[in-house]
Structures are given as structure tokens and as C-alpha cells.
């Protein structure tokens, strides 16, 4: 079942065309990586997919709805790129993760037993249960990033979108991160769209790779990436195939 689709999506900042007829889809239970060099339009495409930006032309559907008007927003989880300010907020790991649950219960909602169980599961998925009371500011970069992934997992999303979640993160955290994503896909049947330059840790688990250079220039399994031209394989595709 298709849970995310983009059809002929284009976007321009003034005369600068950033996206030109981007078309792809993602099914439930699929683990897909979106890669591309700097300036290829990844961030813009991500903002359009999340409903934070309107495309100039084309159409995006998330669970069959316009992402800006999505009713059950908890179904769409998002891990942003380096929330620098958040790392300095004097909050415990559990508080950060619990904040993600608001997407499920509403901003005025009260936490019940089911919510606390979901928060426990999210902490367990990223192996931070033992550090739940620790201030986020006292964690390593990798642990901090995992706490923000758990925040997104706390709403039990059916589609998880991650923007460069492991940039600068240690190998151990990358492995934990890969395990938590494969768990989400295999056990819960969720779809995952991962935007990242560093795919070593997840390469084995990917169903497809989308290569974006203003438009989708490759859409297929990592093993078929050889046909794209490994000779000029840039750093951002290392770890695949």
C-alpha cells in the first residue's frame, strides 16, 4: 500500500529551479534512502513532503491526503537535522521523548498508561531506557540524536522521515540507530524515508535508494547502483551496493 507519493513535484526559489518534476512513491514496510549532493533539493523536497512548503507544481500525498491537511498527524513522524537549540534545553531524555507523544494525544492531552508504555518502547528501541532520567545535555552526540529519534518513535508513526540523523555520530550509535529503524520497518510495518550522506550502517537494510539531482535520477535497490556510474561515486553514496 502506498503511503507516500510525489507526482511531478517542482519548486523554484525565484528563477532558481530546485526541484524539477520529482516523482516517486513509498509503500508501507519499505525502507528507502534519499541521497543527493549538496544543493540537489533534498531539504526542499523534504519540507514539501512534510507539508511545511507548497510545491510550485505537482502533487504530494501522505496516506492519501495533502500533507498540509493531514488529519492524523501522528502517523507521520519526523526527525529533523541537528536540532541544535534542543540539545541545550535542560530536559531529561524521558521529557524529550514524551514530547513526541503529543502528536498522538493532542497538545492538551493527558498522558495515560498506554502513552507511558509507548514512551518506554521508544526508549527501548534506541537503547536509552537506562538513561531516561539523564539530562540530554550530558549525553554524547550519538545518544542525543537517538533521544530525538525516540521522540519521533513515541507517536508510533506509520511513516518516519529522517533528515541526516546520523551526521557526526559514532559507530555504536549508528548501529543502534540502524537497529531501531529496521525494527520499526520489520516489526511495525512502518515506512521509512531516510535522507542521509552516511548510509554504511543501514545499507544492508535498504529496499530502495532514490538519487536526487533536482529530479530523481535513480530509483532502485542498492545492488543496482553500479549502473549509475560507480567510477565517479561521490562520498555521499559510500557504503552502498
Amino acid at each position, binding site marked *: 500500500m502506498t503511503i507516500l507519493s510525489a507526482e511531478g513535484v517542482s519548486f523554484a526559489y525565484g528563477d532558481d529551479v530546485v526541484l524539477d518534476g520529482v516523482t516517486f512513491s513509498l509503500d508501507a514496510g519499505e525502507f528507502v534512502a534519499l541521497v543527493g549532493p549538496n544543493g540537489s533539493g533534498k531539504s526542499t523536497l523534504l519540507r514539501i513532503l512534510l507539508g511545511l512548503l507548497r510545491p510550485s507544481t505537482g502533487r504530494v500525498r501522505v496516506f492519501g491526503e495533502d500533507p498540509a491537511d493531514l488529519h492524523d*498527524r501522528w502517523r507521520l513522524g*519526523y526527525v529533523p537535522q541537528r536540532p541544535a537549540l534542543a540539545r541545550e*534545553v535542560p530536559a531529561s531524555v524521558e521529557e524529550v521523548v514524551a514530547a513526541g507523544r503529543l502528536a498522538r494525544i493532542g497538545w*492538551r492531552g493527558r498522558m495515560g498508561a498506554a502513552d507511558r508504555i509507548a514512551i518506554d518502547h521508544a526508549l527501548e528501541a534506541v537503547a536509552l531506557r537506562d538513561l531516561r532520567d539523564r539530562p540530554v545535555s550530558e549525553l554524547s552526540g550519538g545518544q542525543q540524536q537517538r533521544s530525538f529519534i525516540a521522540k519521533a518513535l513515541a507517536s508510533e508513526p506509520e511513516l518516519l522521515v529522517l533528515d541526516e540523523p546520523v551526521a557526526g555520530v559514532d559507530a555504536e550509535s549508528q548501529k543502534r540507530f540502524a537497529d531501531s529503524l529496521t525494527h520499526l520497518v520489520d516489526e511495525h510495518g512502518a515506512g521509512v524515508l531516510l535522507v542521509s550522506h552516511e548510509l554504511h550502517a543501514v545499507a544492508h537494510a535498504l529496499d530502495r535508494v532514490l538519487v536526487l539531482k533536482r529530479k530523481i535520477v535513480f530509483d532502485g535497490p542498492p545492488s543496482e547502483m553500479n549502473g549509475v556510474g560507480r567510477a565517479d561515486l561521490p562520498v555521499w553514496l559510500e557504503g552502498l551496493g
Partner: protein
Amino acid sequence: MLPFPFDRDYMQLALLAGVVVGACAPLIGTFLVQRRLSLLGDGIGHLAFAGVAAGLLLGIWPVWAALVVAVVGALSLERLRSRGRASGDLALALFFYSGIAGGVVLVGLSDSYNAGLLTYLFGGILTVTRSDVLVVAGLGVVIVTAVVVCGRALFAVVLDEESSRVGGLPVDGLNSLLAVLAAVTVVAAMRVVGILLVAALMVLPVATAQVLARSFRATLWLSAAVGVAAVVLGLAAARIWGLAPGGTIVLVAAAAFGVTSVVFGRHHVRTGVLGG
């Protein structure tokens, strides 16, 4: 009857108003500090100054005039910031100087110099009346209720605005609510420490709490406790040694941060907490 130095009626009224402000100002300040809007209270304070001047000129109770101007100004400031038409500090500067200039012009329009203005600029906690205390308490109830009901959502927005928006939280509404609460806090606090020092009570107790607390919830309530302690000790010191109470309260709050930082020895003066 309370013991010295709170044995007089005027000291008890001051204590009541001060405790409410001492608890509420850091509650709102905790959210502002995390968003690096520590000086928002100052900006709104200057708008409140224009409101006080307008009230004195028009014969309206200055507190109500200040409340209207501060709330409208805070909402405009938030709108300017969120639309990206001015960065946070530029938007603050715009309102900071417009407020003080508006106040100066309005004071100039008065037929005579109004001494009442000074009690708003520098605080006049020892002259608060029972009706002042009731108004401050009412504003305090609004602030505490809002924090209890919306605190979790405000915290989520502080953590990350974009993912909160994706998660369906009413981010614009919550930001506007925080701006309005900051305006209400400034107006409630201006009779206690004065417009010139109002932001200090919103920031200094938070800085102290952050040194000690290990969670956001603890920071929130500990900062309120530090704010109350600063007011009680500051008022007592002012009565005993004949000092200006507003300034003394703020100096106690600053000393609390200094002592806490030295004793607990961790470097917690971060960007956005005390500027820099």
C-alpha cells in the same frame, strides 16, 4: 501577624504581591530563556512604559493601559519574528526603542511631571494597595493556569518548532500565547521591581535553576522557588537596611546565581541564558 521585617501592613501587601510575581515571572522566563528570548521581557517592559505614560496622560489606570499596550506589542513582535521579517534581536530592538520613545513623548505631552511614573519605572512594591495585590494575584492565576495546561506543548515547541508543526501542534498559537503570557508577567511585575528590572526576575532565577536541575520540569518549579526566595530575602534586606526593594530583590537573585554557580562548579552560563 508576621514577625519583623514583615510586621507592618504595607510589608505584608508587598510580600503577597512579590511572592506571586517571584513565582510567575521565572515560570514564563524558563520558556523564553530556552528560546534565546531572554531580553523579550525588557522589550515588552519598554512597551509597558509607553502604556503607563498613556494611562497617566488619559486618566486611565496605568496598569490596564500597560496591559493592553504590552499584549498588543508582544503579539506584533511575535508576528514579526515568526514571519521572518526581522530576526529575534532586531524585532526586539524595534519594539524596545519604539516603546521607550513613545513613553517619553507621551510623558512630554503631560502638563506636569508625574511622580507616579517613577514607581512604575523603578518599582513601588512598598506602596502596593489591596486592589494592586488582587490584580497581581489574578494575573498570577492566569499565568500558572496557562503553564499547567499548555506547559507540555510549549516545551515541545521549545525543543523543536518544525517537528512540532509536523506533529500537528498549533505552533503559531502557542508562540502567541507565550508572548501574551510574557506581557502579562511584565505588567504584573512592574509594580514590584519596576519596568527597568522586570526582565531580571524572568531570567536570573532560571539561570540559577538550570545549574541545579536535571529536567525541564525541575527547572520550571525550581526557578519559581528561587524567584520567591529572592523576593522574600530582598524585601527583608530592603526593610532592614533601608534599601530600594526592587533593586535589592534583583541583586539577591543575581547573588543566588553567582553562589550556586561557584558552589556547584559546573559551567552552565550558556549562550542565551545571560546573553553572550
